[in-house]
């Protein structure tokens, strides 16, 4: 089998990449999806709040997905469901497996990585005690409740205030469960403000910041948990313990990009995002292999996933037609400093770049009334005031080609947070 572009993952990123690649003139495109349907994580996100930027209306996850799926079908883009990609190779051979074709391989000219992310496993949590039944990751609970129609419990405590946990607090409350508390280790929430208000405040569910679960009770099934406050070093403070009876503990402690495949071909990774390092065309260190969506860095808004993925699709189409054309020495590095934890992309090529490039990043704490400062070889070229920045909300800033071309010898860009 031969295709110009093989897209791994049929979530919003893969769909938008496929659509854009086709519209940019690529013909032979194949999307590979391991699930039995397209749409990715959106299929289990039945709540509304998707697509405000893209469609100017608030859609639910499945509705947002369906608009892109319809487009992909209309454009005649090929896809295979129930198909798991097992390996990729440096020469861009993709090895996949499904029950009708067995193991098969595809020669691709370009690959787009769009595998999304998975939840942090609970093994990475240091909670003492047994591992009784009744402990679920929030995403698993979401799938069970929303897709299988199976309620995971009646009395619930949630550890972690990531968006999935918040959404599930509301969902389980509506389904008749009593959600007793959400404990968050950090002094700020990991989820969007809107979700705190509409999923917790609306239902009187307490959010306990700087708190963690220190004990889980029950042998066969969870019977209760103990929550305690933590100090600035995240150590539980003696005497602050509070017991909650519950049959379910949901863990919403973060997502990590799913990059086993990317690592196989030695793609250079960003240790902060756990996603590939990419240039402004969203191309990884492996030429012709692009990445977008949650596999690149975890997004909270699907609109940005679609936007980013469209860029990857367009650039993959261009790569197939014209090859790379990039010279490494033209690259300017982009680095986050002083509160900016990472940037995507991490290099930009002023020669090849479009009129502007959107740089997305996250900050490491909550900042009020600060400035985002962009410096080109030490000289400030952009300064923007931000009334508030928080780790849970992705930031972005646009770099304009014209500005970068003014200084053809420049080697580095830094993005930092500054006062006054």
């Amino acid at each position: 089998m031969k295709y110009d572009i093989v897209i791994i993952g049929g979530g919003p990123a893969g769909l938008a990449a496929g659509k854009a690649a086709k519209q940019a003139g690529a013909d032979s495109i194949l999307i590979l999806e391991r699930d039995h349907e397209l749409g990715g994580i959106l299929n289990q996100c039945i709540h509304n709040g998707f697509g405000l930027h893209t469609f100017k209306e608030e859609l639910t996850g499945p509705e947002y997905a369906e608009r892109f799926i319809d487009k992909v079908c209309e454009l005649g883009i090929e896809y295979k469901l129930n198909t798991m990609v097992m390996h990729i190779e440096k020469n861009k051979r993709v090895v996949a497996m499904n029950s009708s074709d067995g193991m098969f391989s595809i020669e691709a000219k370009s690959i787009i990585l769009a595998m999304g992310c998975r939840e942090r496993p609970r093994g990475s949590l240091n909670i003492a005690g047994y591992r009784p039944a009744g402990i679920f990751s929030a995403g698993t609970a979401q799938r069970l409740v929303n897709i299988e129609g199976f309620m995971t419990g009646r009395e619930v405590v949630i550890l972690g205030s990531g968006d999935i946990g918040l959404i599930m607090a509301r969902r389980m409350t509506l389904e008749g469960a009593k959600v007793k508390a959400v404990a968050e280790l950090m002094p700020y929430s990991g989820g969007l403000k809107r979700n705190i208000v509409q999923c917790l405040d609306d239902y009187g569910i307490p959010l306990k910041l700087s708190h963690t679960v220190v004990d889980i009770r029950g042998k066969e099934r969870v019977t209760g948990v103990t929550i305690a406050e933590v100090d600035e070093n995240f150590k539980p403070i003696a005497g602050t313990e509070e017991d909650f009876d519950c049959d379910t503990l949901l863990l919403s402690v973060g997502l990590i990009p799913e990059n086993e495949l990317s690592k196989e071909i030695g793609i250079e990774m960003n240790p902060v995002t756990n996603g590939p390092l990419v240039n402004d065309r969203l191309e990884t260190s492996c030429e012709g292999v692009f990445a977008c969506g949650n596999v690149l860095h975890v997004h909270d808004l699907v609109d940005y996933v679609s936007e980013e993925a469209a860029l990857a699709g367009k650039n993959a189409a261009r790569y197939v037609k014209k090859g790379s054309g990039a010279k490494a020495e033209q690259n300017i590095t982009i680095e986050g400093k002083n509160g900016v934890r990472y940037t995507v992309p991490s290099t930009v090529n002023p020669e090849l770049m479009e009129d502007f490039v959107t740089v997305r990043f996250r900050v490491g704490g909550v900042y009020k009334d600060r400035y985002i400062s962009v410096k080109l070889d030490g000289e400030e070229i952009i300064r923007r005031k931000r009334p508030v920045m928080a780790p849970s909300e992705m930031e972005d800033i646009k770099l304009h080609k014209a500005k970068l071309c003014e200084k053809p010898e420049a080697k580095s860009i830094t993005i930092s947070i500054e006062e006054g």
Partner: protein
Amino acid sequence: MKKRTLTCISCPLGCQVTAEINKGEIVSVTGNTCKRGDVYARKELTNPTRIVTSTVEVIGGESSRLPVKTRTDIPKSMIFDCILALKGLKVKAPLKVGDVVLENVCGTGVDIIATKTIKTF
């Protein structure tokens, strides 16, 4: 005079907005950084509404649950009644996005509609 404090969600700033209420009338709104906070607080305190989403059982479909939503927002106080009205509801595949699953839920004048296309098995 009663005071109510809420978090404005109209932008990521999330101002703590305080409204003073006298005999059910909002006499002042403070703490908001911009006009939207005022509008948000008044709406939230006098006529709070939400879009409600849930799932219902599907018969003969390629999946067993259909995600649904209220077509537009309904009064916040009606959320639980609305969810209750969906309990035990069964719909037959095939279904398309936008198909009405239940008309005029709990007399709100708002229909419950399908948010996913489900083919027959």
